[in-house]
C-alpha cells in the first residue's frame, strides 16, 4: 500500500510540476484526437443528415451496419489500415505508417460510424415541422442543411464529444499505426501501455490520471450538450 501511495504522490508531483515530457504526450494525444474528430465530423455529420432525410433501398441495412460499426474494435481498424499503409501495402509509398497522420486516419475511421450514426439519430429526433418550416421559408437544399446544423447543434456537439472521447481513450490504433515513437506518435494511451513496462510506474500513473481527467471533462461536456439538446 505504501508503495502505491508513494507512486501516486510521485505521479501527482509530475503533473503539478508540469513535466515537459508528460505534457508533450498529452498534447500529442489531444491534437491527434481533435484532428480525427474533425475529419470524422466533416464526413459523418453531412452523411448523417443526408441518410436521415432520404429514403433509399438498403437504408435499414446501412443503419444496422452503422450500429454494429459503432463498436468497431480498434485493433481491427489498426490491422486493416496497417495492411494499407505498410510499405508493401497499396498505400505504402505514401509513407504514412508510424506517423501521426496514420493515427489520425485510423481514429477517423474508428469514430466515423459514431459521428454518422449519432447524426442520423439527432436528425431523426428533430422536430418534424423543422423541415417543412425551412422549405416554406424558401431554403435551398444547402441552406436547409445549414439550418439543420444550427438547430441540432447541441445533439451534434454531443456526437462530436463522444467521438473525441473514443479517439483519445483508444490504444490499439495509436500503437499499431503510430508505433509509440517518442516525441512524435507517443500518445497517453500508448505511453501508459508501454512506458510502464520500463518500470516507470509514476510516469504511467501520472498519464493515467490525466487521461481520467480528460475522460471526466469529456463526460461532463457530453451530458451538458445532451441536456441542452433536449
Amino acid at each position, binding site marked *: 500500500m505504501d508503495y502505491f501511495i508513494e507512486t501516486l504522490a510521485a505521479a501527482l508531483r509530475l503533473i503539478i510540476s508540469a513535466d515537459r515530457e508528460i505534457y508533450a504526450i498529452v498534447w500529442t494525444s489531444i491534437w491527434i484526437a481533435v484532428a480525427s474528430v474533425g475529419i470524422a465530423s466533416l464526413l459523418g455529420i453531412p452523411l448523417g443528415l443526408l441518410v436521415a432525410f432520404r429514403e433509399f433501398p438498403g437504408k435499414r441495412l446501412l443503419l444496422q451496419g452503422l450500429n454494429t460499426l459503432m463498436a468497431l474494435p480498434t485493433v481491427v481498424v489498426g490491422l486493416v489500415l496497417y495492411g494499407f499503409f505498410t510499405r508493401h501495402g497499396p498505400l505504402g509509398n505514401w509513407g504514412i505508417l508510424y506517423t501521426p497522420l496514420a493515427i489520425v486516419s485510423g481514429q477517423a475511421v474508428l469514430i466515423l460510424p459514431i459521428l454518422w450514426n449519432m447524426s442520423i439519430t439527432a436528425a431523426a429526433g428533430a*422536430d418534424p*415541422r*423543422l423541415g*417543412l*418550416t425551412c*422549405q*416554406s*421559408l*424558401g*431554403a*435551398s437544399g444547402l*441552406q436547409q442543411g445549414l*439550418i439543420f446544423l*444550427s*438547430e441540432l*447543434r447541441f445533439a451534434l456537439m454531443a456526437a462530436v464529444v463522444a467521438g473525441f472521447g473514443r479517439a483519445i481513450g483508444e490504444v490499439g490504433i495509436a500503437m499499431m499505426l503510430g508505433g509509440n515513437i517518442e516525441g512524435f506518435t507517443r500518445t497517453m494511451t500508448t505511453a501508459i501501455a508501454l512506458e510502464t513496462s520500463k518500470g516507470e510506474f509514476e510516469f504511467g500513473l501520472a498519464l493515467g490520471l490525466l487521461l481520467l481527467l480528460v475522460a471526466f471533462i469529456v463526460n461532463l461536456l457530453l451530458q451538458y450538450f445532451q441536456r441542452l439538446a433536449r
Partner: protein
Amino acid sequence: MTWAYELRDARFDYGAEPVLRIDEIRIARAGITALVGPNGSGKSTLLNHLAFLAWPGRGSLRFHDREIGAADFRQYRRRVGYVQQKPYLFHASVRDNIELGLRIRGIDQAARRERMQKIIREFDLDAIADRQAHGLSGGEAQKVALARALVLQPEVLILDEPFNHLDKTFRLSLEDRLREIVLRDAATVILTTHDQFLAQTLSNQVFSLIDGHLLPLAAMNLFSGRCSGDRFVTGKLEIAIPPHLPAGNRLAIEANQLVLSKEPLESSMRNRFQGRILRLSDEDLWIHVTIDAGEQFHAVITPAALKDLGVSIGDAVWVSFKSTSVHLF
C-alpha cells in the same frame, strides 16, 4: 375575377388510403379564402400543396394563370408565406427567427434592417425581440411566426388556424391587417378555421373540407344515406335531388340555402319539411337555428329575420330548400 389557384382533378393518397380528392376549385386572387373543416379532413395536405410543399399523386395546378409542375415547386415556394398551425420557431432569438427568411433570399443588410424594424414595430414585438424564441407563450410564438411570414411580403399568405392562441385584441387587429394586405398589396390570403362564422364574416370565399372532399360552400347540413332515383334516402327523410347528379353516399346543404317559415311556402322549392326548433344561439352577428325535422337542420339567419319569423324554442317551423342547392359526394 382572376384566380390565384386553379386545382383540377387532384388526388392525394397516403398509401392506398385517399386523403384528399378535389374535382375542381378556384381560389380568388387578392381575396381572403377560408377553409373550414375538422383536423384530419385533409386540411394540412391541401395547405402544403398550395404552399408548393407537397405534390399530388395526380392532378393539375394553375397558379396566377400558369400551369405549375412539380419541378417548379421550389421556385414558387418563395412567393408564399406559410404559418403552420403550431409554428416551429428556430432555437435562436425572436429577431433571428424573423430575419432568417430574408437572409435565405439574400436580401442585403440595409434592406433587412429596415423591414425588420417595420415588422417588429407593427407586431409590437420590441419587448421580446431579443429573447430566445423557445420559451415564448403560445400567443407570442404565433405572433412571431406571423411576423416571420409577413416580413417576406409574400404574394400568397397561408395561415393554418391563425387565431387559435391569440387574444381578442390581437385577433381583431390581425383580421384588419389581413384585409389591408389584400386591399393594399393585392395579396391572396388562405386560412383555415373551425369557426364557421369567422369564415363567413372574414372571407370572400368559403370552402368546406369533409373527409377529404373539398366543397365550395360552408356546409352545415350533412346527411348520409343513398340515392334512389330522384331521391336521397337518409332513413328518416327523403330529399329530392336533381336528376343526372352523380350518385354519392353523402349529401350537404349550405346553411344559408335553408328558408324558414311558420306556414308551408307556396314556391317551386321541392323540399319542404316540418320540424321543431331545438336550439337558438346568438353568434356575433348571426343567429344559429337548429331544427329537428326527423333529421337535424342548421340554418343561419339575421336577428331581424328571427324577429320577423316570431318563433322561439319548441315552436313548429317549416324548412324549405331547392333540390338544386344540394351537393352529393
